[in-house]
């Protein structure tokens, strides 16, 4: 066994350039595969991080239609509901459209109670609650624009016209590494106050309710009970789990995800062909050596060990290099595209996919050359040299 490993190792260096280029090609492929898989993960991140104990209620016609804020009390009365908060997509722009980040008007106390993953120190929390014109922002967003506590930030309204000034009173951190730290939150009361003056018909309306429930297993029943309250009203509701609500957004862009997924598999397929070609060349060049091994009494299992061993060593070296590179590349990706990908972390599952992909490449690359090496009889193998 040791001798087989030594032989495999030394064989790697017989064509240094070829081995190096193959390892590099596998590394680039695994890196691309890992990054594409992470893009898909990020796409589904909202679904993944959604809590099973949170429901979202919105207008049954469409999310762009609002609901009366007075629904809160009725929802609160439904059995199994622990707390209710609400919010509005604001859609404000900071200086220029290219500076996109999500911004919401929320009912602060209830909302932060429902989202314990947004971590804010007590002083900042109290300051935010006290000041109706204040806002809290995620750490990544604050870093992106160099905002500090006490800074005044002006957002240009798109849905709600005008320039809106906010004082930053807190910078929240994510409790988990997948928590989005690029969101801007401010008081729904402040928005409502201004809407009352400029667009009174839209006053006292909210875009969605977030509902905390005591028992996640009763989510379906509670959702039905909430919706039944508002049946036949002017604004009927649809209540679903936060996961389903977020999935609705992902579904709108599913075609893109499918394309990315397809490309990630094509990358693996191409590198399979490249590696198989390398192994085929290797086996062809050594056909007389394999014949010598057979002549000396080495059996099929030994030849398979040599060929698959070399294929695995080359491919897994490339795979490990690709995985190692994917972390700094993901950081670069995250830094330069934070407005599109607020969280861009390589997950354990992606690394597992990379390793499985690497094994698959190694196996496939070695299969056909192995079959050829095994099926070439000794006399023919030796004749290639003699």
């Amino acid at each position, binding site marked *: 066994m040791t001798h087989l490993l030594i*032989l495999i190792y030394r064989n790697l260096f*017989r064509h240094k350039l070829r081995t190096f280029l193959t390892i590099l090609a596998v590394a680039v492929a695994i890196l691309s595969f890992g990054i594409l898989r992470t893009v898909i993960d990020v796409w589904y991140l909202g679904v993944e991080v959604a809590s099973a104990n949170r429901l979202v209620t919105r207008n049954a016609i469409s999310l762009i239609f609002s609901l009366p804020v007075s629904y809160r009390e009725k929802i609160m009365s439904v059995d199994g509901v622990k707390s209710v908060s609400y919010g509005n997509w604001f859609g404000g722009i900071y200086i220029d459209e290219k500076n996109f980040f999500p911004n919401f008007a929320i009912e602060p106390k209830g909302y932060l109670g429902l989202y314990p993953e947004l971590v804010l120190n007590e002083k900042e929390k109290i300051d935010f609650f006290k000041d109706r014109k204040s806002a809290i922002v995620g750490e990544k967003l604050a870093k992106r624009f160099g905002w500090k506590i006490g800074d005044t930030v002006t957002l240009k309204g798109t849905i709600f016209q005008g320039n809106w000034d906010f004082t930053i009173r807190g910078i929240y951190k994510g409790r988990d590494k997948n928590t989005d730290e690029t969101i801007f939150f401010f008081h729904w009361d402040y928005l409502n106050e201004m809407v009352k003056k400029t667009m009174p018909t839209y006053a006292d309306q909210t875009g969605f309710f977030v509902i905390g429930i005591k028992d996640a297993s009763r989510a379906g029943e509670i959702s039905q009970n909430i919706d039944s309250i508002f049946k036949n009203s002017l604004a009927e509701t649809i209540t679903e789990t936060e996961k389903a609500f977020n999935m609705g957004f992902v579904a709108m862009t599913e075609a893109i995800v499918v394309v990315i997924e397809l490309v990630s598999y094509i990358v693996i397929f191409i590198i399979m062909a490249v590696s198989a070609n390398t192994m085929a060349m290797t086996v062809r060049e050594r056909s007389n050596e394999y014949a010598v091994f057979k002549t000396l009494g080495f059996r099929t299992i030994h030849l398979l060990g040599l060929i698959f061993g070399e294929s695995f060593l080359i491919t897994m070296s490339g795979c490990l290099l690709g995985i190692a590179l994917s972390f700094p590349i993901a950081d670069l990706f995250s830094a330069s595209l934070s407005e599109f990908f607020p969280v861009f972390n390589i997950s354990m599952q992606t690394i597992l996919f990379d390793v499985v992909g690497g094994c698959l490449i190694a196996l496939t690359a070695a299969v056909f050359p192995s079959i050829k090496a095994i099926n070439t*009889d000794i*006399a023919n193998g*030796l004749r290639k040299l*003699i």
Partner: protein
Amino acid sequence: MKEPVVSIKNICKAYQKGSETIPVIHDITFDIIDGDFLSLMGPSGSGKTTLLNLIAGIDKPDCGEIIVSGINITRLSESELSRWRAINVGFIFQFYNLIPVLTAFENVELPLLLSPLSKSQRREHVISALRVVDLLDRIDHKPKELSGGQQQRVAIARAIVTDPAIIVADEPTGDLDRKSATDVLNLMTRLNDEFGKTIIMVTHDMRAAKRAKTIKYLDKGYLNDSPANTDL
């Protein structure tokens, strides 16, 4: 009278080339006695290497039997034949066929890796074999660091390291200069004389063939005790 170590009975062999069947060996029967040094001669395409491959168990005849040390090798399966070769046959090729990434020591050790010997026992055998071929000072050299003659001596050490019943050599001096060829032939003669090894050698070279105790001639797949007229 010595017992035959190899008994060949009515063997024949043909190769398929497309739809055409090309007969290579025709109904050959002969014995090789233990301790013999047999030289097989004949023109190119006469079937010398094919006959050698059949005796060494790396090819199978289409008909007939080959019995080596009491074992009918034509009835062995591929894996049985592999095991049998590892123990009973030593191979010497024209182009040495050493593994280029292994040292002289490791190349000679290769056949022993399939044996149950311990590492120290293997080392002892390899050193002995390399001593016989007088290459102990080249133990850590890789093939490309050795001359053709030295490489062939390493190949001979590899052939004898398992102490096989027979040694087969296919044109062992075909790629060597005159001096190296003489050294190799001296070594083979010594293996036969001093160690009693049975050697079957295929060669074109009459000078090499004359070192053998027995010379047989192949012509168009037929075995003769004297050369065909065309070879005279």
